[in-house]
């Protein structure tokens, strides 16, 4: 009986926890970033990355970012970061909340304490 309850509650907790989406993360001189990345088709990639940058700039502007600041923001990103943003900007998490599920945290907290002290 106990274990049935426990299992049910665990499942409920798991469902709650996975509910929201998981996030799945000089002329002539060859740049350090190029040397560090394992680009196999360096030249072709440069073109894609260029497209990626203007694309991301546009996407960020459409999300309400001031056009005056967006360029510097994109310039601070690496090619890979630009690419990841271009691909997943609509599914990427944007941290902003501070009010969470207080009750859930409390319940989980009690359980966690129990485990920690019984080990």
């Amino acid at each position: 009986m106990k274990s049935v309850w426990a299992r049910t509650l665990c499942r409920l907790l798991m469902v709650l926890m996975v509910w929201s989406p998981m996030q799945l993360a000089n002329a002539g001189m060859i740049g350090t970033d190029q040397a560090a990345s394992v680009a196999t088709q360096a030249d072709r990639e440069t073109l894609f990355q260029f497209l990626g940058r203007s694309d991301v700039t546009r996407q960020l502007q459409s999300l309400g970012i001031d056009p005056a600041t967006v360029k510097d923001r994109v310039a601070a990103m690496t090619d890979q970061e630009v690419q990841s943003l271009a691909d997943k900007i609509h599914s990427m998490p944007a941290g902003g909340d501070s009010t969470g599920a207080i009750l859930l945290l409390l319940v989980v907290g009690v359980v966690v304490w129990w485990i920690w002290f019984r080990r």
Partner: protein
Amino acid sequence: MAGVFISALAAGCASLFPQTSELGKSGLPPGLPERVELAHTPFFPQEEYQCGPAALATALVSAGAQTTPEALVPQVYVPERKGSFQVEMLAAARRHGMVSYALAPKFEDLLREIAAGTPVIVLQNLGILWAGWHYAVAIGYDYSRGTLVLRSGTQEREVMPFGTHELVWMRSGYWAMVAMPPDRIPVTAEEKSWLNALAAFERVGNARAARTAYEKTLERWPENVNARIGLANVHHGLGDLAKAEAVLREAAERDPDSVVVLNNLAQTISDQGRHAEALPFIERAAAAGGPFAGAVQKTRATILERLGQKRIE
């Protein structure tokens, strides 16, 4: 009654927070103090939705930068999403002269960085039915009590059990970042990831800061060829061609087959007017082929052209 219920729940739920269970079973990881709190870490209570700027300011100021959450809002905040992207948290730190580094997704690494004196930004998801993504800064822990201390939202000192934190943290794929001044390397840094972080820093940041960072990196990983390439690129960018050449010659001795090293060495020698001396290096690079063949051909053409002009003169 409640005890029995909770213990049953606990036994069944250990798999909900695998890393916490592991930490509990295996004991305090070697070399770590029982309890740490970086009490001097500044606290910036967040405005609505602005935990990104607040968390980033906390990490940057404690690394020695001068900034405020208000100044960071136009650098990381996305109005329509009412939050900040991880990518931009990493990118913005570079604009303040810090090397941003995403930690490996390990609880132990989080504790190690805190123990080394570095506050760690973590991305949690506090939501239940809808996403509640939230950045907080982990600044301490108490192993025997199993708790983490965070600067979080409007709470200056939030104490959260390890397991609770793991539950909300694992949903971001255990995402965590640190912002390091250029003369420091995170204790848990992995060589390759750190070099990528430095290359990202180099393309945005101040060249002198990048030079310091590469020098420190070579102290820690003296064999690393990319750190030498980076250091030479920074010297070259600062106009210090002789130093760039010296670094690249050493790199070519250690790693004679690196096309990037050969290309950059040839370019650097040629930039000092010694085109004929540069030629054999670029020919070796061209013979090797590979992903940089296009860039190598351009360098070779430049050197041949300069050589031709010199002969005509």
